[in-house]
């Protein structure tokens, strides 16, 4: 294709209008040339001979009349071995290489190859001369970290081909020709180990897309048990700032049982990415024994980096995800935050002077969000293998109000909703996923009936608590009160999880099943309490024992011992309820044990994450009935209002 040229006739922020001659393509990449800088831009609108282009860099210093060179290609990424462990910006420029070349700052107009063209890979051919191939056929494999990286026939080649030549097993760089293929018209293509693919087109080389059913284990209890995510499914995490979206994503990226995790840090704080950047290489993946970084790709376009590249970054991430899915792997894409991406679209739309929709977001917001999440999926390939791409996006709604366009559009298309609540995070109940509002359409590995029962307890407990706020504890019946205590118990020992603890931070499915069953029995059991204080003391003790239990490795001997203690406590309560004397004795005994455990558990926490450990550090709360429900109740907006009320 002829390379078209143009000149700049208008500049408004990161949007330039360009008068061109010849033909251009929608979403074609062009370069605005100012001095020595070549600023990468993308065509977003064409009207007559004027193209509107968004510039992926700062436009400072551009002039009317500056030249623009069109590339003839859509915005693309390089796909090939060597992507894993890399840190890219939104346009797939490797950031570490940029840093090595240009130091502290992101120099304008620098475009680097995403892959290392010098590194050699050990290629093992999988086809021989004469074999029929087509786009996405496997030519061979190279080992990349712990995976066999499949080398495909480039996805953009259309039609049927035959292998004319293929190299022997050996070491090659990604640019070395490894095969030649030919179609029946005699057109030959020389293939190497990498190719490019436009980010905005989904990769759809599979036989069928299936309904996601198998759970993607995140090892976060409230997610896996109550609001599961399926392999190939989608989910979203909306929440106000400070509710723990990013921490939740980081935890998921560490513990999720996916083969490959792609983190798209889209328009968020640089500091958060840095933590991942610096820590992941140090952390060992328990499943592979290798560094976590070896299964991770980070796409990092933080809030101060140019907005247009932010818009591209989620597509870049999705394309890389689809590429690895094509190899039959389970890929998890975590996008943080999709609201920033939506805002980037809004900025762009505003500069294009499009008629705005709700809150000035463009009218196509909804369809774009849907298209993005639809790139997820569990797919079956021609060879009968399966691969999956799961997408989880955080949403940062303005003012923490879920009734805004991005949250609402997202909720329409995702399979699970993990809504974070400010109240829960203020009360340091992490993860702050609201157990009443959240939902999931996927199947949990725990029996549905049990979960429904547990959720019912949570709902009722919540109602009772609301009532207690009005009538006080005195006006609440003992039956209601024990439902409330049960719901609190479930919340404290199961829904809440200390993500910074090595044991409690990740709960295997086996353990979840085992422990949940135990919790369920407590919830289901009818206790016959005479007094509220007795009930509360009982549940306080039970909670303490349970939380300690959560900190013990399932393989430890202590695990069973602790379990026995818990059973004793429960049985004791059930059988000895009529003999007050005995009961008191039993209570003092377990109290002693309690204290010992508390000390132990605490020392563990205080090192790991004292803040999260509210529950453990709590003193014996005989006299403050409400404090366990809302320890940090006065959230920042409330106190003045409440005081007014008091007057």
């Amino acid at each position, binding site marked *: 294709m002829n390379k078209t040229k143009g000149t700049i006739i208008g500049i408004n922020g990161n949007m330039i209008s360009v008068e061109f001659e010849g033909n251009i393509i929608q979403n074609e990449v062009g370069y605005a040339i100012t001095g020595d800088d070549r600023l990468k831009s993308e065509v977003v609108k064409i009207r007559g001979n004027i193209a509107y282009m968004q510039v992926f860099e700062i436009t400072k210093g551009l002039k009317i009349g500056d030249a623009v060179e069109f590339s003839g290609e859509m915005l693309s990424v390089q796909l090939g071995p060597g992507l894993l462990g890399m840190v890219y910006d939104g346009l797939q420029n490797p950031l570490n290489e940029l840093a090595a070349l240009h130091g502290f700052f992101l120099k304008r107009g620098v475009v680097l190859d995403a892959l290392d063209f010098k590194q050699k890979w050990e290629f093992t051919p999988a086809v021989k001369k004469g074999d029929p191939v087509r786009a996405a056929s496997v030519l061979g494999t190279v080992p990349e970290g712990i995976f066999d990286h499949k080398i495909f026939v480039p996805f953009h080649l259309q039609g049927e081909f035959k292998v004319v030549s293929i190299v022997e097993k050996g070491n090659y760089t990604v640019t070395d020709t490894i095969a030649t293929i030919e179609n029946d018209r005699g057109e030959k293509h020389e293939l190497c180990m990498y190719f490019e693919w436009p980010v905005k087109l989904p990769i759809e080389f599979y036989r069928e897309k299936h309904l996601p059913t198998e759970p993607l284990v995140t090892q976060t209890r409230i997610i896996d048990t109550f609001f599961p995510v399926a392999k190939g499914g989608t989910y979203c995490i909306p929440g106000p700032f400070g509710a723990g979206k990013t921490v939740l994503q980081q935890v998921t990226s560490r513990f999720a049982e996916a083969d490959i995790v792609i983190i798209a840090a889209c328009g968020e704080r640089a500091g958060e990415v840095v933590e991942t950047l610096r820590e992941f290489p140090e952390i060992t993946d328990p499943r592979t024994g290798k560094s976590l970084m070896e299964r991770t790709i980070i796409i990092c376009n933080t809030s101060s980096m140019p907005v247009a590249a932010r818009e591209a970054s989620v597509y870049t991430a999705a394309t890389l995800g689809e590429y690895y899915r094509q190899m039959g792997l389970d890929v998890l894409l975590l996008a943080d935050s999709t609201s920033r991406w939506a805002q980037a679209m809004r900025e762009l739309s505003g500069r294009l002077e499009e008629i*705005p929709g709700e809150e000035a977001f463009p009218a196509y917001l909804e369809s774009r969000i849907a298209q993005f999440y639809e790139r997820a999926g569990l797919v079956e390939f021609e060879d009968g293998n399966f691969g999956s791409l799961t997408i989880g996006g955080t949403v940062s709604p303005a003012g923490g109000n879920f009734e805004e366009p991005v949250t609402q559009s997202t909720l329409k298309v995702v399979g699970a909703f993990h809504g974070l609540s400010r109240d829960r995070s203020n009360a340091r109940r992490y993860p702050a996923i609201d157990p009443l509002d959240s939902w999931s359409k996927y199947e949990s590995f725990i029996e549905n009936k049990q979960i429904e029962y547990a959720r019912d307890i949570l709902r009722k407990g919540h109602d009772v608590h609301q009532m207690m706020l009005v009538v006080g504890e005195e006006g609440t019946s003992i039956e209601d009160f024990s439902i409330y205590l049960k719901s609190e118990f479930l919340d404290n020992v199961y829904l809440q999880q200390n993500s910074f603890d090595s044991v409690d931070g990740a709960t295997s499915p086996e353990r979840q099943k085992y422990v949940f069953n135990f919790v369920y029995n407590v919830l289901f059991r009818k206790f016959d309490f005479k007094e509220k204080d007795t009930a509360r003391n009982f549940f306080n003790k039970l909670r303490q024992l349970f939380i300690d239990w959560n900190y013990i490795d399932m393989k430890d001997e202590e695990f069973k011992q602790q379990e026995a203690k818990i059973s004793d406590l429960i049985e004791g309560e059930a059988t000895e309820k009529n003999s007050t004397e005995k009961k008191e004795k039993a209570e003092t005994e377990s109290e002693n044990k309690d204290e010992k455990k508390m000390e132990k558990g605490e020392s563990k926490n205080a090192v790991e994450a004292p803040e999260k450990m509210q529950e453990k550090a709590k003193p014996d709360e005989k006299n403050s009935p409400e404090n366990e429900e809302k320890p*940090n109740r006065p959230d920042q907006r409330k106190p003045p209002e409440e005081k007014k009320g008091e007057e």
Partner: protein
Amino acid sequence: MQKVYNKILSVTGNVITVKAEGVSYEELAEISISRGKSLAQVIKLDRDIVSLQVFAGSQGISTNDEVRFLGNPMRVTFSDDMLGRIFNGSGIPRDKGPSLSENMIEIAGPSVNPAKRIIPRNMIRTNIPMIDVFNSLVVSQKLPIFSVSGEPYNELLARIALQAEVDMIILGGIGLKYDQYMYFKNTLEEGGALSRSIFFIHTASDPIVEGLMVPDLCLAVAEKFALNGKNVLVLLTDMTNFADALKEIAITMEQVPSNRGYPGDLYSQLAARYEKAVDFDDAGSVTVLAVTTMPGDDVTHPVPDNTGYITEGQFYLRNGRIEPFGSLSRLKQQVNDKTRDDHRAIMDGMIQLYAQYNETEEKRAMGFRMSDWDKKLLKYGKLFEDRMMNLKVNISLEEALDRGWETLAECFTPDETGFRTELVKKFWPKSVQNEVEKKDQPSGETDKDAKETDAVSESEETSADKKNTTEPSEEDAETGQIKETEAESGEPVKKPSASKKKKPKKEKRGKRPKKS
């Protein structure tokens, strides 16, 4: 070559258009208005029509005023001579000193490569317990102070400027009231900190557009100093004014507003400034503290809301105190394990108890019966507010931690606080420990205990603390009557200040030599 144009096509708000060629985006121009010269910046180019925002405002602009393009974007001088100087929003000295024009650097430069950032690791001590103990400020952090108009946020900033352990301070005032500007100047002068400070001041009476440049000027200079190895603290007040200036320009430019009139790129605009906070691996650092006033005390207002998503936590300033619950330093975990063993325990423990106090307070207001435990909490809450939350309190982190233990010991027995035994053994004030354990106290006797504790503690504090402890606990005796407590809580807050005023100086004297 400089080009001069003298045909102004349109004047809308503070934006003018001229017909010109060869102009580059964000280039500066100088306009000669009858009342003087003003700078203007190119904000839009459409063929040969150039839109400029005029820093001095468009009042009095004549259609034949001269527009001269300078051929460069906004720049600011950079040298050590800037220390102690005061500039306006165009980077021109406003302190009658000589003008500085050497070594001009561009403002609003490219952002730092995330791969070159490091995990923050150093704490900035401010001697304000609510910051040092509960939400430590960390080098390279960006933190807003969310506040309502009328709160003493500028006083807080000034105090931080005086006391923070940094090499230099850059203060950016956007829409600052003139008396507040003088306050900053005088306070820093008296405190001897002016010589390590640079001011960029845009006052409320200056044209609004000029305020837009202030954050960029401050941060560009700060970044340069940081690259030269300095640890710089940038204080900005008030970023809501900055956002309002953005809004004004956006509306003038007929951009589609997104939320309450603010432009759709508010988030990106704010982020571009805040993200300048950085810790360079082998050089200095930039830390940003910015006041954001919340119109109508509404944190969901677009400015504080967007800010909250960008910054690494926030301080809520309310009723003259840093509110312990909403306030959060996201980076504190990186540093508060390296200070003292009991730092995290005190941080969590005291806040949890204070949260319980708040609930008890609520219950009391609703007329519920007060148990012994409730009474203890009430006493504790008052002490906590006086000794920790009061902004006048000016003590080092270690002193604050000690004071925390003393306060706890006055109110509770060790097992009531739920602290780890080893910490209790190490830090629980000994004399009080025995006292408290002997007699499980009715509230009257607690006061005696309290006084005894004080005797143990630093003599300088004693008198003030005695007053404080007695007052609230008397109140405790009479349940109900929440109004009274509140009214009086204003009182004791102020009393200690008299006795503590001496302290800051003493502190500083102690500290300075160490550093140099």
